[in-house]
C-alpha cells in the first residue's frame, strides 16, 4: 500500500514524500517535494490533494493507505470534475476540518526566483505573495506581512518528472494554505503548454478542499480537447 508522508525534518525543511510501503509500486526519482518551511496545520485532505498535484500519475489508481482521507473527499473530487481514472483509492475516516470561515486571505504563488510583480489580482483578505526560490542556489525563508520567500526543490521535481511547474506551484499553495488562512490561490504566468483540461483538473482538485484557484490568463481560450 502506498503512503504519502509529510515531515518537518531535522534540517528545517518540510518534505512531502511518496513511500511505496509494502506495495509493489515502483517509486523512482523524484520521490520528495521540499519547502524550506515548517508547517503547522496540514490536514489529511490537503496532503492528499498536494500529493496528487506533485506526484501525478505515480498516484493514479494507487491504493493510498496514508494519510486517511475525510469521508467526503473523493465524492467532492468527483463532483468537482476531477477525472475519475486519476483518483487513488483512499482509506477514509472522519471528517475534514472546516476552514471555510477562517480562510480569508489570498495567496499568489509566483514563478520560481521571481521578483515582486505588479499583478491585477482580487481576492478576499490580505494579499500574500509567495516567492519560491530554487534550492540549487538558496536555502531558508523570509517572512513579511505580504511576502514569503523560501527555498524549494520545485524546479528539479518539475524537470525530472515532467510535471508543469505551475502544477507544483499550486501544490505549494495548497501546503501552506492552512497556516496562512488562504481561501484563494492565484497562479500567474502559466505556460501556454498546460492544457485547459489540466487547468480544470487542478481547479477541481483544489475546490474539493475548499480552495478557489485562479489563473491570470484567459484559460478558457486555451485549446479545448
Amino acid at each position, binding site marked *: 500500500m502506498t503512503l504519502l508522508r509529510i515531515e518537518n525534518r*531535522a534540517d*528545517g525543511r518540510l518534505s512531502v514524500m511518496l513511500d511505496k510501503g509494502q506495495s509493489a509500486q515502483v517509486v523512482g526519482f523524484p520521490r520528495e517535494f521540499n519547502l524550506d518551511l515548517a508547517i503547522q496545520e496540514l490536514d489529511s485532505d490537503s496532503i492528499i490533494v498536494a500529493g496528487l498535484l506533485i506526484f501525478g500519475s505515480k498516484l493514479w489508481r494507487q491504493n493510498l493507505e496514508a494519510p486517511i482521507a475525510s469521508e467526503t473527499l473523493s465524492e467532492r473530487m468527483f463532483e468537482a470534475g476531477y477525472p475519475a481514472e486519476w483518483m487513488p483509492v483512499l482509506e477514509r475516516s472522519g471528517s475534514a476540518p472546516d476552514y471555510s470561515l477562517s480562510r480569508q486571505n489570498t495567496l499568489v504563488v509566483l514563478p520560481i526566483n521571481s521578483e515582486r510583480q505588479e499583478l491585477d489580482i482580487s481576492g478576499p483578505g490580505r494579499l500574500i505573495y509567495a516567492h519560491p526560490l530554487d534550492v540549487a542556489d538558496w536555502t531558508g525563508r523570509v517572512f513579511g506581512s505580504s511576502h514569503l520567500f523560501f527555498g524549494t*526543490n520545485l*524546479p528539479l521535481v518539475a*524537470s525530472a518528472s515532467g510535471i508543469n511547474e505551475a502544477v507544483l506551484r499550486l501544490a505549494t499553495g495548497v501546503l501552506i494554505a492552512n497556516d496562512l488562512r488562504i481561501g484563494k490561490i492565484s497562479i500567474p504566468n502559466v505556460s501556454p503548454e498546460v492544457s485547459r483540461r489540466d487547468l480544470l483538473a487542478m481547479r477541481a482538485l483544489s475546490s474539493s478542499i475548499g480552495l478557489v484557484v485562479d489563473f491570470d490568463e484567459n484559460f478558457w481560450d486555451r485549446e479545448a480537447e
Partner: protein
Amino acid sequence: MSQISVICTSQIEDPSEYVTYLDSLVRLPSVTEVVVPLTAEGISDEEFSAIFFEYVESADPKIVPIVLSEKSSRPQSINQAVATAKNDVVLLLENPVMVDWVDLREVIEAIEDRPRAIVWFTHRVLNSPEYGPHEDLYFRSIPAPDSMSFSAYAVSRRYFLELRGFDEEPSMKGILGPDLLKRHERRGGALLRLKRQSGVVYSSVDSPKFSGSINFNIGEVEKIVNSKASIYRNLINWSVPVELRVPLISVAIATKDRADLVGESISSVLYQSFQDFEIVVVDDGSEDAEAVQEAVYALGDSRIKLLRNAESRGVSHARNRAADATNCLLTAVHDDDDIMLPRRLEWGIEALSETTDASYGSWTNFDHYDGSMRTFITRKDFDNALVAFSGEGPGHSTWTIPTEIIKALRYNETLTSSVDHYFATRAAAAGVKWGHVGKVVYLRRVHDFQLTSQDTARQKSGHTLSKFGNTFLASSTGLAAMREEGGKHTYPAVKGAKDPSKEFSGYLPDHLVRRDVIIDGNVNNALLKIGIPTKMVSLMEDRDLVTGICYTEQGLLKDITFDELVKIRKSGITRWKSVGTIDVKAEQTAESAFLHDMAVVEGEIATVWEKVSAQAVGRLQLILAVLRRDYKNGYLAVVQHPENVPELGDLEYFSDARLQRRLLVRGELGVQVCYTVFGFENYQAAVQALNRRHGHKPTSPAAIFPAVDPESLVKVLSDEREKRLLKNSFDDSGLGRIS
C-alpha cells in the same frame, strides 16, 4: 509528418487470422511498417508459408518479416526489431489487440513532446466481437485482467535503446512489458495515458493470441525484474549491433593545460567494459589549445567531442557546458589527469536503482612521481546528515548521475573551488539519493600541478560554505539529530583498501609500471586482430573437441602499454585484468628487455613449468568436478600428453568417446602441459581405448573415473608434479639430487 513502426512481437499460429490481423495494422494511418518476427518452426509449415508470403508479396510492402534464428531468444529478437525500426516511435504489441481506436498521431506527438516517456494503453475485452464502425466500445467492454495489461505500449526507439531493450537473460520469456515498464519507473520515467477515446486497445474473448505469449504468467518476468535492483540491462553483451546502439552515458572531462595527461585519461575511458558512451572534453582555455586538440584527436575515436572555451571560464562553466552538449541519459564525471579502472562505468550504471538516483565510489590516490598509492573509501549513502556529521562529500570523479539532474541544478559558476561538494550537497537537499558502489572506481593522480594541491585553503573554505548552507535552517536539536544520523553511515568493504598496489598498480601510467595482462576469451584471434601476438607468454585453453565449444581461453600478455590496453578492449575482449609491478625506472630499452628475457631462458625453465603445471592441475580439478556432475553414469578417461606433443595426434584411439575435452596450458619458453578428458558409456570402452593408446604411447600417464575417485587422481597428478619439481631442483642439504 512523423510516423510510427509497429512491432508485432510474435506470430499468430493460424495464417489466415495472422494475415487478417496484419492487414488491419498496415491500414492504420501513420503506420509505415509492421515488423513481424517469424519463427523457423512457424514458417516450416507449408500452409503458413504459402498464405503468409503470398500476402506479403501481393498486399503490402509495409510488412517487414524477420525470420528469427533458433539461437535468438525472444528478448533478443524484439530488441533487434526495435533497433532496426525505420521510425523514431515504435508501437510494441505483445498481444494481437485492436488498435483501430487509438489516435496514433496523438501517440507520436506525446512521445515527440516527451521523448523519455512511455505511452501506455488500457486494454479492455469486448463482450461481443461484433460492433458498429462508430460505436463507443468503452461501455461494451470490461477491463482486461492484469496479465493482459502489457498488451500494447509505445516508446521512442532511442529511449528503448537507452534502457538497453529487454533483459536478454536466458530465462526471460513470454510477455516482456513488465521488464521495460518497471525499469522505466525506477528511473522516474513518466507513463503517459491518453484521453479515454484514444488510449484504449480492445480484444474480444475469442481473439487469436500470439504464440509466444499463450498461457504466460507475467509474474515470472516480474520476478526476474524484481530480483535485480538496477535499471539498465545488457551492459556488456547485447545482441543489438554496435552501430545501431545509442550512447547511454556521457563522460564529461574538463581540461586546462594538461595536454600531456589528457590522452592517458581518455584512454582509460576507451578501455572500459561498458562501451556505449560518448566523451565530452571541454578545454577551458588552455594556453596551448592545439596541443590539447592533437592529444585528443591522436586517439582517433569518433565518440570523443572536443569543445573549447577561447578563454578560461572556470571549472563549473566547463562542467555545465559538457552537460549541455550531450543528450545522454547519464553523465560520468572524469578528470583530465585521472585514470578510470576498467569497470568504472559499468559499476556506476549498475548501481543506479529505484532508491539510488546517483552513484559514487571510492578512489585510490597515486603519486605521479613514485607510484605510491593510498585508498580513500568514503561512507555510504551520502546525504545532508552525513555532511552535518563529517562534512565529507562523494568524490567528484566517481559520480554517475542523470544528466537531467546536472542540467536542472547546474554547477554554480560563481564558485571557483569545491564546486563538486556544493553541487552534491544541493542535490541531496533537493531530494537526490546518492548510493555508494562499494568499490574503488578510479585512480587519482597526485602531482604538483593539481588544482587541489595548489589551492587547498580555498577548497576548504568552499567546503565550509556548502556545509553551512546544508544546516542553515536546522535548530540546535535538529543539527544534533542530523549529526547522530550521519554518524550511522558506515564504510563499505572495499577491495583494495589495504593494499592498493596489489589490486591497482596494473592500471598506473606507463612511466610507473611494467604491466602484464591476463585476458579471457578468443585470445589468439584478438591478438592477431590488434597486432601484438608476440606479447603472449602463456595460454590456457579448455575446449570441447567434439562441439568445438571453448570453455575457457585465457592468455597472459607481458609488457603491455596503456595504449595496448585500449587495443585489447577494442578487439572485443571484455574480460581482462592488468597486473603491474611498480618500476619507476621502467623506461627500459629494447636491449635490456631482451637481456631480461634471456635471463629467464637460462635459469627459469623449471619455475615456468611449475607455474604452468600448477595452473593445469587446478583447472583440471574444476573440469573433472563439472563433468562428474553432468555425466553421472559415464566413465571419464584422463590422458596426460607428453610435452613434446604440440597437438593431439592420437584422437583416433578414442573415436568411440562421446566426450572429448582438452586442456592445454602453455607457458613461457615453450613449456606446455596438456590433458584430454574422454567420456565413455561404460568402463570397458574406456579401458579398451586406453589400452589401444598405451600400445603406441606407453609413457603417457592416464587414469579412469570413477574407478579412481577425483581426489585420488588429482593427488596422483600432484605427486607426479612434485616429483618432477624435486627432480629439477638442486638440494642444498648436500645429499645430492633425488632421482
